[in-house]
């Protein structure tokens, strides 16, 4: 018998009144990988995670987590799954140590085990020096480290992390991710939602959500390679005017300004996209250097989440 995937969702949907928060989501998360959820605010990341944890009833569709159907068998999964909520959900009036000790007892760790496990978690997440401080007095990043320590306390097979690093500084974020890879090495599966492209790029697999729908998924490298657009970088003296000018071209799908440079996405069937843009700008009297570059994950995200690909461009 082959091992069931960590998560298998089929047509998972959730409606809140008129809002379809998650719309017919079908995806498979293999074991022992980091699976990323990338999507703008309100795209349904948290709602999906909550359904997979058995906290919300799906309006339609079904899901299996570690081979068990949720929400029916969610109770049986409690010890095998860890969940770090988007909003800090530990007790602000308890100290770091008390919070962790409480959860350790709830998860049924033995008395001696608790001491040792607490010390290890606090070491790992650099909390030892503030063990007696109340959670409410911690900074945003320290809170997130505590929350991750709490979510991994019982060594779950599957870890749901809902925007775990939104308030963490870059150095701590790097260590945080190293730690996630360690967990995967030890056999865990991690599903993490994020707004950060650099984090998304580190995932083994990635799902891009938009308005509750799955708009792209796959390995980050494949997504970047297969992006349905040509990416041209433009360097010129008057980027604002150049941007307006280039958007008049129907082949241009999206342009973002990065300092003095422009980052343009064009329809992939266009021949010689960089010459085409350079020519247009020259005709308008703007001196510009253009070059074709490799698509980034940001480009994948833009292409996946803007309906016409033109990303709010002026008509």
């Amino acid at each position, binding site marked *: 018998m082959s091992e069931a995937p960590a998560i298998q969702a089929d047509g998972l949907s959730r409606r809140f009144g008129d809002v379809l928060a998650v719309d017919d989501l079908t995806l498979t998360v293999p074991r022992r990988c980091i699976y990323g959820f990338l999507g703008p605010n309100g795209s349904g990341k948290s709602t999906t995670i909550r359904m997979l944890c058995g906290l*919300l009833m799906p309006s339609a569709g079904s899901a299996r987590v570690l081979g068990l159907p949720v929400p029916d068998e969610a109770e049986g999964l409690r010890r095998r799954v860890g969940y770090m909520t988007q909003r800090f959900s530990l007790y602000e009036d308890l100290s770091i140590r008390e919070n962790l000790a409480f959860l350790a007892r709830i998860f049924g760790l033995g008395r001696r085990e608790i001491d040792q496990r607490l010390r290890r978690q606090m070491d790992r997440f650099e909390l030892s020096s503030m063990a007696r401080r109340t959670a409410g007095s911690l900074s945003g990043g320290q809170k997130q480290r505590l929350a991750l320590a709490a979510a991994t306390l019982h060594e779950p097979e599957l870890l749901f992390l809902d925007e775990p690093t939104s308030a963490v500084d870059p150095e701590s974020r790097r260590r945080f991710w190293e730690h996630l890879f360690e967990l995967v090495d030890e056999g865990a599966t991690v599903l993490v939602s994020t707004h950060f492209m650099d984090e998304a790029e580190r995932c083994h697999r990635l799902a891009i959500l938009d308005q509750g729908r799955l708009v792209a998924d796959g390995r980050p490298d494949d997504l970047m390679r297969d992006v349905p657009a040509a990416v041209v970088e433009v360097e010129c003296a008057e980027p604002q005017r150049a941007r307006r000018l280039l958007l008049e071209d129907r082949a241009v799908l999206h342009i973002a300004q990065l300092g003095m440079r422009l980052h343009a996405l064009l329809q992939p069937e266009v021949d010689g996209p960089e010459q085409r843009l350079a020519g247009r700008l020259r005709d308008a009297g703007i001196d510009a250097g253009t070059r074709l570059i490799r698509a980034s994950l940001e480009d994948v995200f833009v292409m996946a989440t803007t309906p016409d690909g033109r990303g709010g461009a002026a008509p």
Partner: protein
Amino acid sequence: MKRSLVRIAAVAAKEFRHLSRDRLSGAMILGIPLVMTLLFGYAINTDVRDLPAAVADQAGTTASRALAAGVEASGVVRIVDRVPDAAALERRLADGGIVVGLYIPADFEHRLADGRPVGQLLVDGSDPVVQNAARALTQAPLPALLDRVRPGAAGAEPAGGALAVRAYYNPERRSPVFIVPGLCGVILTLTMVLFTAVAIVRERERGNLELLITTPVGSLELMVGKILPYVVVGYLQASLILAIGVVLFDLPVRGSLVDFYGGAGVFVLSILTLGLLISTLAATQFQAFQMTFMSFLPQLLLSGFMFPFDGMPRGAQLLAELFPLTHFLRIVRGVVLRDADLMLMADDVWPLLAFFVVVMALATARFRKRLD
């Protein structure tokens, strides 16, 4: 099973920590019983004393003067004026200078001999409490007073009148003695429900619930763990109220403390589950407070604390039988004032146990480990 107990203990310990770190809760635990007991004991006094009164004594005999003195000696009235006739009494009543007028007609001695009413009390009846007090005066042991003046004269007076107000358990009819034990139930009802009504709503509002329900803790374990610390708090409050009663109001504790604490324990458990149920129904802490007061008011009014239970219409009595407070009032008054045996009050113990079991089951069933 053992794991379950460990989880309950973990929840209870956590709840205790919250409680010990929340100054407001701490202040409420000790402050509410203290303030309410003192308020009710000292200020809210249903004993009517020193009502301003006037006498119109048209007989002017030794016996009639003794009657007036006897009425004043009851302590209920204080004679502030003497007027010539009934009309003057009425005028004084109307202008509010007095609330009671004693009219003794000229043929007082004849009436006394005949056994007819010897005089008339004119009472400002706008306050029923005052009216009742004055009515009680007409049955007060006047014959005994008159007896002292003129032995044998009281023979004509119906003996039943003197007995009507004779009080067995509070002969001096001091109200704190009657109120404090009941107050114990009222205060516990208010504070216990207030504490547990926010127990789950607060976790929901602060976002803790989303984490808690993804742990293996069971609904019943959570419910039991949440109320355990408050049983201790309830005992603390009950002891405090009893102590205040004994020290400040000379409350006689006639029954055994074991019975008192036994009854209080069952009562506290039952009332805590009411708070839990509210907590599973309310969406916000504010709603929980509103529901707490909505459930508190009918209990306060119908339990027999404010008004005598026997005087209420049948429907209200039946409703009141559902309230834990109603039963606890009987238990606590019985144990403290009459030395009643808790075992003999089973009729009031089992409704509390039934309430505990039913409401606990309801609360546990209402609580879903879900967000929707």
